């Protein structure tokens, strides 16, 4: 149930990185992902999962990121994906 989700951390993330809002889920970030060769990393899904309160699954994905920045290079909305990933590792807790 979406009503019970605590989005405090996500709102913090969104305030720091307002460009998150403009994602249109085209999937370029996932398609180009260097880590994606080895894991099911998907930046697009990470953001959605955090939005839907699935923090744990999202964090598992974030942990595998190599920070290469390819997703940032290809993003058609110009979202600073790399810094958002970094922000996540600062804001969210590994539980």
């Amino acid at each position, binding site marked *: *149930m*979406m*009503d019970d989700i605590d989005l405090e951390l996500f709102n913090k993330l969104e305030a720091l990185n*307002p*460009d998150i*809002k*403009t*994602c*249109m*889920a085209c999937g370029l970030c996932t398609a180009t992902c260097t880590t994606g060769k080895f894991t099911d990393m998907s930046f*697009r*899904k990470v953001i*959605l*999962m955090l*939005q*839907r309160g*699935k923090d744990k699954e999202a964090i598992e994905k974030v942990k595998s990121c190599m920070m290469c920045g390819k997703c940032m290079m290809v993003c058609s*909305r110009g979202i600073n994906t790399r810094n958002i990933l970094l922000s996540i590792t600062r804001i969210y807790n590994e539980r």
Partner: protein
Amino acid sequence: MNEHKILIIGGGPAGMETAYQLKKLGLKPVIIERSDKLGGHLAQWDRLFPASDDAEALLEKMREQCIDIEKRLNTRITNITKENNIFHVSLSNGNSYDADAIVLCTGFDLFKAERKQEYGYGIYNNVITNAELEHYFKTHNDERINEPKKIGFVHCVGSRDVKVNNTYCSKVCCATALKQACEIKEEFPDSDVYCFYMDLRMFGKGYEDLYLKAQKDFDIKCVRGRVCEVSENIEGKLVIKAEDTLLGTPMKMTLDLLVLMCGMEKASGIERIQNMLNIKSNADGFIETRDTFYGLNHTKEEGVFVAGACTSPKTLPDTIAEARAAAVEVFNYLKDNGQQTFSLRF
């Protein structure tokens, strides 16, 4: 002997623009409108996508252009017969016309939201339609809209849905939804607004900008997934279910207000006129045009023309463009056939 005219059936944007252009071409159009004023659906709308332009200003301009044009309001067609390329048209007010050509500008009906029973329109208090929201923007008078905190928009209600026999896309709902989402967010800045879409079909000029604006400036949350059912909880709030298809997980949430983006359907009662003129419908129920490219303003019946959303869902710019094209087509038809109206004038 009746005066020879060009009869325009329907006084919405398509009818008004066709009439105005015909008049400019030196012909004598008559608008037959069943309601008591010109404007059609445009008169119900407050602002227009993509840039939230004032609907009334546009309507005023169109009405002004029609000031000198002969109109028959509160009037219905009772009978049409065709003889030697002349249409004898009887009206409900007892009058009749001889027309050299007829332009059908009968527009569309909004999908009746109660037909999607699972959305509970007419059953749950806080389920409203796009038209009702537009009416609220105009009047600010709707007790169902009371400081909502969470608002949902369901796209494609009555469109792209074999379960209501409408498999086509209504074309205008995506942009309308995002426009209305921004507007309601502007009105209730503390609210969370969700748009449940299947595809965001932002095809026109400025539509993609509207999408970006909705996301960036208004924080409209677009969820890819159709709402499957709506119910009411004990507090009278709406509980909706959908799938977040981008994540592949079902989601359930409580909303204070749900707006159904009703699509376009063929206008009710149009079959009656179609039968009089021997004109068929296409697979979507709208009036069939002669072909898909060159004959868009023509029906298969000589002398019967079409413009606007009576042939398929259309945006306003599309409608206006088609109305202008129809006027030219009528003009050419009359010229080529040496019709009376034409010879009178030239």
